[in-house]
């Protein structure tokens, strides 16, 4: 299912075709160009075969007729050259390191880290390579996991290390590295019934302290807000390779809805690799708009930005199904949002003794 990994040679060939497009245009007396899909929600569609949202057919051509675009092309060339050098010398760098290295690229240097991140993604899209193929590492913070599951990770000395995420780790759990591909991590065995992804560290620690993973035979995973690629990737691998259900437990607000969408359907920014990162079988557990009413949770009024985000979600193809439309509209009507930890209103154990068992029972998981 996962995208085929490219060899170093294939990666170079793919990158050279990007360079070739520019070069040939100049030879033919045209402005150099780079063609890539439009990366907004207007150009993502559901891929029935893969069960995730992917970029559609809309293409934009970045051509060197404006200064901004021309600089982007030049930067792309510098990035390609830099990647080739890394491939040839067996090195890798973080996106942030590349941003600083670009200081020496003269006219091709980046204006901000955001620019360099976006360009790396652009290159992934047009070459169909992965960031890992480019030897570029994210800065992003990987997840942590606790639960009776065992995997092995290749350490810096190249040796495989066997780790049980319940017995071999401290209270902070197993830290998921940035690369969770097979050459780095092997999933070995488990004794759990499902995986629960949790938005906030506070709630993760609460469940750990209350021994929820053992009581309900599950793997707990702390998303750390908007989940990093590697977090989404390991969720997908566990779900697929171990055939485990995934439930997602987040705050009850428009931003949490987006986090869920990126886990289950794919993020707009990474729609080119959705089939590689998204877990279509994931389920949204809570907090839902009706939870706010049913459990009479302490809530805050929606801000202007919240309302804008909810309205944007109404037209987002990923939220097109009736359950989501209902939830979003209900939240808009209610005008309220609630945090996970508002469940503490009924005591520290309420979440593990009452709320989660009730919600899991609905899904047939408890």
């Amino acid at each position, binding site marked *: 299912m996962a995208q085929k990994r490219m060899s170093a040679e294939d990666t170079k060939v793919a990158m050279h075709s990007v360079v*070739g497009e*520019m*070069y040939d245009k*100049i030879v033919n007396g045209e402005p150099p160009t780079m063609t890539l899909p439009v990366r907004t929600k207007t150009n993502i569609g559901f891929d029935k075969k893969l069960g995730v949202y992917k970029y559609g057919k809309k293409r934009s051509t970045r051509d*060197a007729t404006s*200064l901004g675009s*021309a600089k982007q092309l030049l930067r792309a060339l510098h990035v390609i050259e830099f990647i080739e050098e890394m491939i040839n010398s067996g090195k890798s760098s973080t996106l942030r390191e590349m941003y600083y290295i670009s200081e020496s690229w003269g*006219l091709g240097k980046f204006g901000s880290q955001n620019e360099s991140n976006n360009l790396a993604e652009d290159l992934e899209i047009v070459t169909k390579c992965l960031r890992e193929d480019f030897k570029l590492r994210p800065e992003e913070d990987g997840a942590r996991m606790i639960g009776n599951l065992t995997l092995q990770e290749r350490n810096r000395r190249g040796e495989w290390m066997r780790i049980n995420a319940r017995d071999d780790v401290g209270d902070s759990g197993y830290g998921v590295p940035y690369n969770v591909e097979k050459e780095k991590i092997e999933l070995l065995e488990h004794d759990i019934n499902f995986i629960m992804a949790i938005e906030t560290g506070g709630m993760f620690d609460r469940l750990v302290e209350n021994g929820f993973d053992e009581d309900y035979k599950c793997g707990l995973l702390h998303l750390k807000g908007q989940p990093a690629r590697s977090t989404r990737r390991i969720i997908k691998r566990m779900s697929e390779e171990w055939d485990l259900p995934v439930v997602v437990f987040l705050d009850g607000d428009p931003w949490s809805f987006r986090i869920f969408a990126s886990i289950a359907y794919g993020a707009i920014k990474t729609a080119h690799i959705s089939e590689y990162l998204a877990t279509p079988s994931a389920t949204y557990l809570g907090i839902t708009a009706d939870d706010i009413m049913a459990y009479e949770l302490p809530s805050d009024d929606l801000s202007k930005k919240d309302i804008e985000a909810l309205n944007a979600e109404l037209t987002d193809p990923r939220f097109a199904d009736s359950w989501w439309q209902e939830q979003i509209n209900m939240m808009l009507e209610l005008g309220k949002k609630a945090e996970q930890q508002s469940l503490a209103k009924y005591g520290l154990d309420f979440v593990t003794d009452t709320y989660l068992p009730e919600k899991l029972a609905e899904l047939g998981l408890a």
Partner: protein
Amino acid sequence: MSGIAQKLAANQKQVAISEFFEKNKHFLGFDSLSRSLITAVKEAVDNALDACEEARILPTINVQVTKIDAKKDIIELTVEDNGPGIPQKSIEKVFGQLLFGSRFHAIRQSRGQQGIGITGVVMYSQLTTGKPTHVKSKIATEATAAVVDIGLDTRKNKATKSNSGREIWEEENGEIKKHGLEVTCRMKAKYQKGRQSVWQYLRMTSIVNPHAEITFTDPEGEIHFWPRVTERLPRKVESIKPHPHGILLGQLQRMLSESKDSRMSVFLRMNFSGVSGRAAKELCAAAEIEFNLKPKSMKPEQMRALLEAFQGEKMFNGKPVKLLNPPTNCLSPIEEMLIKKGLSKTIDSRYATTMTRVPNVSLGNPYQVEVGLIFGGNMAADKPVEVLRFANRVPLMYQQGGCLLTKAIESVDWRQYGLDQPGAKGVPKGPAAILVHLASTNVQFTSEAKEALAENGEVIEEVRKAMLEMGRGLRKHLEKKKKMAKTKEKFELINDILPAIAKKSAEILARPIPNLSGSITKIMSAVISESETEWNKATKMTDVSIKIYNYTARARAYTILATWPEKSGGIIKNNAFGGRKEATGVWAWKLETLQPGENLTITFSLDGLEKGDWTETDVFYRGSQEIIGALKMDEKYLDEIRNQEKIMQELVAKSESHYTESSPNEETTQNEEEPQPEPAVKPPTGQATLFGGEL
């Protein structure tokens, strides 16, 4: 002509001056403690500037305001200049006698039309503190300075002098001062800051007197300095005779009664401007008076008839008598370039445009409008623009809303020129200042306070026209700035980025670096102009270069036009490309063919200018394909310039014919024993223009 002035002249022997002063202090400029100080500074500084101008001296003026007694609002004011000084025996008259001074006797543009003069300051000081005014004066031919304290005997309207003597006047550097005047007076007054302050008055004065150096020491001891930015003195203004269109009955009466001429035709020709020998006879005929009637024996109804003939109400052969316009050399405009310098030295800005319209005549009075607009820099963007109003180089600081000059500004829809103006009403908002200067032999004010100019349709239209033109200039500037930024980007693209893309892609692919010309043409697909205007230190000239690139696939032909400050004395040199003059201040070059991928540079230098005079050259084109970085020639713009040229030529022609018609040769052929015309004839009474107009 002036009711108050006449009354004053007639009654001054009976009415105690102090009483008169007390009654009229609001329009004499002494109605509030803060305004009194400004008025005093104004009188002294105007005198200094006028005296220097007459003596052709570059003025250096020091103003110092000191608080003597803060509780009682007692202030000491000292104004020192480097003017010609006043001979000892005249000091008393200048400072002590009301309405003494040459400027009340001739019709010409002068600062002193406003206010009661320095005597008012002496009087106010005396009345509020009991102190006389201390005067120190040195003239070049004497070794020492005369000093004297001048007070006023308000009952007799006579100066009282005391402590007179002579002393050695040393300057700060220890040298003997060559000539100059220093006036020190003590008065009840208040020093204020802000828009209506001594500081603002001097700042504005400095803008319209770029040839003056002004130093101001405020009561806190802070020194404000406005440097001299030109060595050029204002043009010496000529006195002119009154024009029949602008004359009123009272004035005509006085002129007639004091005339020594033997007959009316001579009287008319010799005492008025614009009246030829032929016109004089026609006027007499229209008014049905004998042309050889003795002026002194004119009857009142004849005077009225003559006045009607002046106004064209009584006609000759069914037509109003044709009169020539008065000469306009009696006006002394500041001139575009100097306004620009004055504004630029005072206010930090990015863009300045100024304009001096050709002189015009309204009701027999020559007038001339000058405007300036500066934009950008440190000025506040969200406040109304600063309006700087001037009449005959004198700042107008009060009653802005009621002034013709303000109304002219408000009549323009500034929104289309890049300034904010909610509802297209009122003074626009934005980081700008607008200057308006009206120079005229007879400035009409709304009231005796002389702070706002009275409505006059012709003048308002003239100011409005100038405003519109400046507005267009501002819009062009803003558009040009935008386009230039865009052009700069394009050049960076093709000169730097594209070659880098070609080189890098060739390196990565290990292929030869490709030729860029095709891509460049496609990317630019435009004709582009870049112009530079730079001061050349070595040659002391301003170098201008205009580069035209053809980045299109076809050969192009254009006429390129550029502006240069011809009216301000700029002379085109080293113009290798030739071309020809298109209109005043606009040069044109014909570009027959510019092949695809080719570029061409027009260069020339401007002589006769100082550094900073000319910093931006406007480039225009005529041709079908747009040139980025240049503006399509708006033929209306040229028409307006040519129109102004025509008016100017007509004026010159008229003033020449004016003088030929009254030349001695003509006299003999006409066989009339008429005296030779004098350059200026003094109106019989001096107060004609004291308050500037009828009440």
